[in-house]
């Protein structure tokens, strides 16, 4: 039973990591930008929920989703569009700059101490199911993640702009030669990454009941690790990597000797390094994926 309990923990944590990793992977696949400011989208989502406290839950959630999506579009328009022809390292540094700018704006406005928010706290209760006690929030996290992923798959397969984005991810210049509008596919990618980030905000705030200006940092690191494990540029890989990191984290938490558990993340990253030595290109990307 305890194994199944752990598995549910692992899948729910993994599904949140997968959402964060998808947000990073989406932007990378389209414009080769590793967007470290993605964590700040998650963080700002948290602060929007904080600022909207007292309103109905649905209003808090919708406002967070809308504001974060607009912020993601703003980042693209102001910081990344002028750098579109820049090299990936330049883009990466720019994303650090955006990340610090947003973080410190929030720090200046709200201060450095974590603040409590009452958001979906009722979901902390567990439901009993076949002898298992599963927190409601975990169930919802899994269901929402699966729904978002199905939505993404349908979007990328069935909509014209979705197919254009897959084409642009594979060969941006050729896509443009066929008439795919560069500005539009990149803006849609940022909007989608904003939506994904805001769902991670909802989960984090509901789970911890606090917001802090640093709340996105750890998540973006894990999301980055997850997308590298899956293979940068592969969205399926990013999702898979997220689930794997979740499963590894929870397993370590459950099965490491008691005195080592506080250092769980150190072991996660140790395993990550070992993984990179074994398969630096990630799980779902073939080495030398040169197209002929």
């Amino acid at each position, binding site marked *: 039973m305890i194994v199944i309990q752990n598995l549910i923990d692992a899948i729910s944590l993994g599904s949140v990591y997968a959402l964060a990793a998808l947000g990073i992977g989406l932007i990378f696949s389209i414009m080769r930008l590793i967007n470290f400011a993605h964590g700040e989208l998650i963080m700002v989502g948290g602060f929007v929920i904080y600022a909207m406290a007292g309103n109905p839950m649905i209003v808090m959630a919708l406002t967070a989703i809308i504001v974060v999506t607009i912020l993601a579009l703003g980042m693209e328009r102001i910081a990344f569009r002028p750098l579109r022809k820049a090299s990936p390292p330049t883009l990466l540094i720019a994303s650090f700059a955006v990340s610090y700018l947003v973080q410190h704006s929030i720090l200046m406005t709200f201060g450095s101490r974590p603040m409590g928010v009452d958001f979906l706290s009722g979901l902390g209760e567990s439901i009993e199911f076949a002898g298992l006690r599963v927190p409601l929030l975990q169930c919802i996290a899994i269901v929402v993640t699966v729904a978002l992923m199905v939505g993404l798959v349908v979007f990328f397969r069935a909509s014209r702009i979705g*197919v254009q984005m897959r084409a642009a991810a*594979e060969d941006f210049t*050729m896509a*443009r*030669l*066929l*008439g795919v509008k*560069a500005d539009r596919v990149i803006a849609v990618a940022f909007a989608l990454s904003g939506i994904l980030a805001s769902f991670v905000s909802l989960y984090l705030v509901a789970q911890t009941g606090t917001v802090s200006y640093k709340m996105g940092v750890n998540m973006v690191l894990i999301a980055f690790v997850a997308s590298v494990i899956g293979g940068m540029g592969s969205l399926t890989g990013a999702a898979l990597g997220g689930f794997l990191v979740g499963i590894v984290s929870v397993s370590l938490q459950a099965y490491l000797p008691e005195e080592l558990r506080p250092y769980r993340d150190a072991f996660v990253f140790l395993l990550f390094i070992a993984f990179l030595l074994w398969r630096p290109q990630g799980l779902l990307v073939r080495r030398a994926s040169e197209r002929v």
Partner: protein
Amino acid sequence: MLAIENLQVNYGSIVALRGVDISVATGEIVAVIGPNGAGKSSLLMTIAGVVKPKAGDVKFDGRSILGEAPEKLAASGLALVPEGRHIFGSLSVAENIALGATPRNDRAGIAADTEKVLDMFPVLRDRFRQRAGNLSGGEQQMLAIARALLSRPKLLLLDEPSLGLAPLIVKQVYDAIYALRQQGLTVLVVEQSVNRALNAADRAYVMSGGAIAMVGRSSELQGTAAFDAAYFGSSQRSRA
């Protein structure tokens, strides 16, 4: 249809085109032939808006298109089938073809044109739902041309359509190009394969070292000593 004047392109310190003049009239098939590194691909990439020239002008349909984005040029009737085909390997054949119609919004017209290109290249119909990356080189070339046609281009730019293909496939590809000309399409084709290009084209430009070395009607160029000199340089080898 297309008028290129004194086009100059540099990649850093490397000069790719040094003052090229080319004109293509409506309904013509014009070939640009020349050895590797003569600047042929640079020429097409510049026309299509991917490469920004250092000097000169490109007029399409009477207006200068210099500095316009590739996606805008695609919408105004220019289609490039680049060297190496650049099909989207992870997408299906159907999706690749549909992407060619990106600038268009007329569902019925797109469906009719898709039928047309599938009739032109029946092998694509058999593989319609498969991953394009699993096609053979010849099939990928056909897909690349089919995809380009879906935008209903006024001017089709073809970069080395016969490169790396078996002779039978090359013939099939060129048969398609002839058929397209019958329907009034204007084509600018770049080739290393001299005979193939001269047979297909009304007129041809010979490029060498980033400049036009010779120009004339295909029938006049074929087999002349001056042509051999322009194409192969001073050393007189037999034509491939």
